[in-house]
């Protein structure tokens, strides 16, 4: 049984910060099928198109029939823990400083055997449920969970290495004026965040929901205008070392593409707010987060972007906005690579049109701000990297996988 983790005490400023180390990162190309599965929270194994056999580890030919038709497919998650061991003296620095560390061998009901990290409540000879997770190197690893929920199971030490659980972590939500921002704050508080800093530009200007926000315990309003480099740097100087999770809730949505706009001022605003705002935040908060990736229970753990799914495929009705989102998406992949040495995840939450005033003319289905907030918390708790929220986002995702050209023509119709 897992002992609940204890809220960390205030950090002794004289104590050295433990630097992050990475677990082994090298993988074969085929093995990145698991990386994709883990990023989206799916459990996928290679399955042979010719004979139907599942196999593991990742191969380039089926060990049952030698067919090259191996496809990553969603697979049944159940297995049995055959044997386990506790590593007391791992060779690798990352695991050595986390020892003792439990691993085991699981026989899947669908056939393959998986060497896996173990949740502490997994018992030898008992059924387990498997997932693939992104470890601190950003690569996929197998993780065995007990079959049924156990007390405090999210507090398991090895599980917490795979996730960015908000419990006892300190969060910066960059825009408290938006409904999405306010929902995110509430959801993170409910998920056990110890403190949520909420950025508000020009805080002397009142805004809807302000009272409720200020009434929440453990919520601190901070001045932040992310389009302003100095404002961002000032805030980072103040609280940068205390931000374990950063949720960029910047929202700058304007309709229109290219030809019906006069000049570039609207585009410039979009770039300033969305793209340059992201740059300011990353440069101010990224380095210290990367350095604090192994800083105890409340180590820096995740950076969350809320992006439009039209970052993946331009929707000309919001054409310039789509382009600004595409720029942010591309930049997020750079940030992801740059934060990886710290073991800090970059979570992209891709949504369809939100149910907010800026999408007033857009017909349903639209995504409720609360749904975005709960998707973020869920992604952090499960350690996901790519999340699609709502029916439109899921629709675009599937259509892009089927035929990107069709998506372009149809969105532009």
């Amino acid at each position, binding site marked *: 049984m897992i002992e609940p983790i204890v809220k960390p005490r205030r950090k002794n400023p004289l104590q050295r910060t433990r630097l992050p180390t990475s677990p082994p*990162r090298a993988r074969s190309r085929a*093995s990145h099928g698991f990386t994709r599965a883990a990023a989206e929270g799916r459990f996928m194994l290679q399955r042979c198109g010719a004979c139907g056999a599942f196999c593991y580890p990742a191969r380039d030919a089926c060990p049952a029939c030698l067919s090259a038709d191996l496809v990553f497919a969603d697979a049944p998650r159940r297995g049995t823990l*055959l*044997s386990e061991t506790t*590593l007391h003296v791992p060779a690798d620095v990352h695991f050595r400083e986390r020892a003792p560390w439990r*691993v085991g061998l699981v026989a899947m009901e669908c056939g393959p055997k998986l060497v896996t990290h173990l949740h502490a409540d997994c018992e030898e000879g008992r059924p387990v449920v498997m997932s693939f997770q992104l470890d601190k190197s950003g690569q996929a690893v197998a993780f065995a969970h007990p079959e049924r929920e156990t007390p405090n199971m999210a507090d398991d030490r090895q599980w917490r290495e795979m996730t960015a659980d908000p419990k006892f972590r300190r969060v910066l939500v960059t825009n408290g004026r938006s409904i999405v921002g306010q929902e995110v704050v509430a959801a993170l508080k409910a998920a056990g965040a110890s403190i949520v800093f909420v950025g508000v530009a020009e805080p002397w200007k009142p805004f809807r929901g302000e009272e409720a926000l200020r009434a929440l315990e453990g919520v601190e309003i901070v001045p932040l205008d992310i389009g302003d480099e100095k404002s961002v740097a000032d805030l980072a100087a103040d609280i940068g070392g205390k931000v374990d999770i950063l949720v960029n809730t910047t929202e700058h949505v304007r309709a229109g593409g290219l030809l019906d706009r006069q000049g570039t001022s609207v585009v410039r605003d979009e770039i300033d707010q969305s793209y340059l705002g992201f740059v300011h935040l990353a440069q101010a908060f990224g380095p210290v987060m990367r350095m604090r990736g192994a800083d105890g229970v409340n180590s820096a753990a995740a950076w969350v972007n809320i992006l439009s799914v039209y970052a993946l495929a331009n929707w000309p009705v919001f054409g310039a906005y789509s382009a600004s989102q595409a720029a942010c998406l591309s930049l997020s992949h750079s940030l992801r690579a740059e934060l990886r040495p710290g073991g800090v995840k970059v979570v992209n939450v891709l949504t369809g049109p939100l149910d907010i005033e800026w999408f007033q003319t857009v017909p349903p289905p639209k995504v409720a701000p609360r749904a975005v907030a709960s998707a973020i918390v869920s992604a952090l708790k499960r350690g996901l990297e790519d999340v699609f929220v709502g029916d439109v986002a899921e629709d675009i995702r599937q259509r892009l996988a089927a035929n990107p050209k069709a998506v372009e023509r149809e969105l532009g119709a």
Partner: protein
Amino acid sequence: MQSSIRTPYDRVVMAVPVTIPYVRYSIESAQWWIGRALKALVDGAGITPRDIDGFCVSSFTAGLDSGISLTQHFGLCVRWIDTIPLGGASAIAALRRAARAVQAGDARIVACVAGDTNHVDSFRYTLENFSRFNQDAVYPYGAGGANASFALIARNYMRTFGARREDFGRIAVAQRSNALRNPHALMKAPLTLDQYMSARPIADPIHLFDCVMPCAGAEGFLVMSEDVAASLKLPAVKILSTIERHNAFGDDPVQVRGGWAMDVDELYAMAGVKPDDIDFVQTYDDYPVISMMQFEDLGFCRKGEGPDFVRQHDLTIDGSFPHNTSGGQLSVGQAGAGGAYLGMVEAMRQVLGQAGPTQVGNARIGLASGFGMINYDRGLASGAAILAGPGS
């Protein structure tokens, strides 16, 4: 006993067992160690490098060099070459390949060598780059070499067959006692069962004295015809039989047996001997549990009787079942691929009566086995050979 239809190794022999004494860490390269072994083979046989026309090599740390690069490095001009990357099964495989080459006339004198260096960081480098499955699906779990893999195998074996840590301890303790008679063994201090039991855990149930110490060293032998050996006046070792098997029993959920179990009848049939006729055994002992499996799979007891077998036998040089008489890798050290050769070279010395302080009295027929390549969840390569001295 079934009869064998395989061609016997008639008139093919092994000669000149050489060991370049191990060191824990070496600043020399693998090439240096392999070179010392070649030199010792040439000197020991009273030949020149020009006389070597077949070359078989195994190494984990020779970097980009395979056998062909090494021919130029060492000035060898050969008409037969092999590079064997089978880890702990490399010596058996080298013997099998070389013996057939000599028998067919493809080569006259084959030098079989394994050598590895051990820089302060080379063990970790070998771990990181061991194999694709290992890199994809084992190393990222903190395994740290084969420790975790063997821990999973050992734990399952203990639960399935009732083995206790003490049983593994008997193997390790006996080998240490053997090693104290081998001046080249890296482990110089006696080991008691109490010390074995109270050692620090590495990966349950593997504790410190279940693990080999990585080191630098090299081993080698020559394979040639009986006639060539006679003309060089070299004491010769007869090859009574060999077996080799890879990726056997892949459906066993956890490894409880090695490939030996598939071919053990063939092994004794070809040699025309029974397990009782074997005077000593050199198993591949990267962990005691795998030696215990070899006792079973090589026919000295039935599957699951390994624990009882070690309780009922004295495994020391002068005991009822002399085993790993040099001290084995557990007490001599594991010189990378050289570890595969350790038992084979010691077996040659035993049947030649050249083992000196570790000599088993009246050792005529011996068995050496190999095991290697924990690619993912189990060891894939296995092999064994039965050797006899010139008088038998």
